[in-house]
């Protein structure tokens, strides 16, 4: 379903990965991440293998490396924490460029960095090849409670409207000479956040009324679309299965 909804993590391409049903991609990403997280941190070769697998998926999905790298920066705050581990860690220490580093801390930092990056890139590939709408459809088909998928559907629809509301209110504030420079001047901003909440709340009531008027009785109609085929499940299973194979092999030969 090509809704063409613009969201910054989606890359609109025609590729075999894009064509896969959303639910198989979600399951594959989840299983792959579990395999990565379950791999002992000393199995350096295994992590190299996982990275190669993701590179393969990225190529198949026609997602450029620079595009991925730019968006993977979201993990930086978490990785920054890892940088301190080699300095703060206890136990055996090693010399490197005149610094005494904890071996355990180094392993800990590597663990966070490698697993974090692989997980983020896998999720980015999922997001790049699947629209938000399809992600919700996929979750729905995976029997995620409809309360969650319904909330996500509404969020998808109304986030833009809410952002527009907020933008208009900001412009209206600026137009009346509001230009806060100090903390004690933020009162108007805080008040308008409250006003925005009230507007959203009232809109929620009106939306509900409009839905009830069209016969809503507490259940959204199910999307009538073809679900994933056996072939699609098999194709997307390739990623976690290969990852598991790499992980097991590395563990056996170390």
């Amino acid at each position: 379903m090509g809704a063409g909804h613009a969201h910054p993590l989606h890359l609109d391409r025609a590729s075999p990965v894009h064509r896969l049903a959303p639910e198989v991609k979600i399951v594959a990403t989840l299983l792959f991440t579990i395999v990565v997280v379950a791999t002992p941190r000393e199995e350096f070769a295994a992590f190299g293998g996982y990275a190669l697998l993701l590179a393969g998926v990225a190529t198949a999905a026609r997602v450029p490396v620079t595009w991925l790298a730019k968006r993977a920066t979201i993990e930086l705050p978490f990785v920054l924490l890892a940088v301190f581990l080699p300095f703060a860690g206890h136990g055996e220490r090693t010399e490197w460029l005149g610094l005494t580093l904890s071996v355990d801390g180094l392993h800990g930092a590597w663990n966070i960095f490698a697993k974090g990056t692989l997980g983020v890139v896998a999720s980015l590939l999922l997001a790049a090849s699947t629209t938000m709408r399809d992600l919700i459809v996929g979750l729905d088909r995976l029997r995620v409670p409809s309360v969650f998928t319904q909330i996500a559907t509404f969020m998808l629809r109304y986030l833009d409207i809410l952002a527009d509301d907020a933008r208009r209110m900001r412009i209206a504030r600026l137009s009346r000479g509001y230009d806060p420079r100090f903390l004690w001047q933020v009162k108007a901003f805080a008040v308008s956040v409250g006003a925005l909440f009230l507007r959203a709340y009232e809109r929620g009531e009106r939306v509900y009324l409009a839905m009830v008027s069209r016969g809503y009785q507490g259940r959204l109609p199910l999307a009538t679309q073809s679900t994933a085929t056996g072939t699609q499940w098999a194709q997307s299973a390739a990623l976690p299965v290969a990852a598991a194979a790499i992980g097991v092999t590395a563990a056996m030969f170390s």
Partner: protein
Amino acid sequence: MSLRVEGLTFAYPDGSTALRGVDLSLSEGERVALLGPNGAGKTTLVLHLNGVLHGGAGTVEVGGLRVDAGDRARLAEIRRRVGLVFQDPDDQLFMPTVAEDVAFGPANLGLRGAELDARVDEALAAVGMAAHRDQVPHHLSFGQRRRVAVATVLAMRPELLVLDEPSSNLDPASRRELAEILERLPVTLLMVTHDLPYAMQLCPRSVILDDGQIVADGKTADILADETLLHEHRLELPFGFHPVRP
């Protein structure tokens, strides 16, 4: 008789009385404008027509079927018969694509598959929006969203179409296009509006609701020509506009 409202009263939980005995009947295929100042009770009346609000005295009948809030099956049929188009299309359109939103109503009626698709196509064609079926509502112009909002209720094949301020916030061309669409629809139409020329253009008959009561009911041309009546109920013709009998 398409719609019959008799002795309808309603007070909100905070005690403010919104309707004080409203009587209103619409024949099949009739187009009627519901006029009145802000706070007159227009929206309250409209929300009674499909049973969203209830609990006061009086009765509402749609196509001979009495609105009864306790009877779920009947309420579902009433909500199919009465199509409510709300003022802000963003309140009405909540699904991620136009087609899914138009399908929402008929899907609630139990339609599925090809039949549902046909309903969606038919409704979108009726408002000239068939080319936009897979678009995101947010990416449409305001006038287009208003037309899609009309389609979302047309897809339920209503007998009575109720529009809340259909011409508000539309540019002149969109306003005219919507009028042309509404004129062609083979349904009974009740149009809540402050846009008196629009009432003149579309509705041969008008009623004025003020302070919870129907205070005037007659030919739109006669009502709009009665300056004293309009003035009493805070209604005003736009500058330079003079109603002419068709």
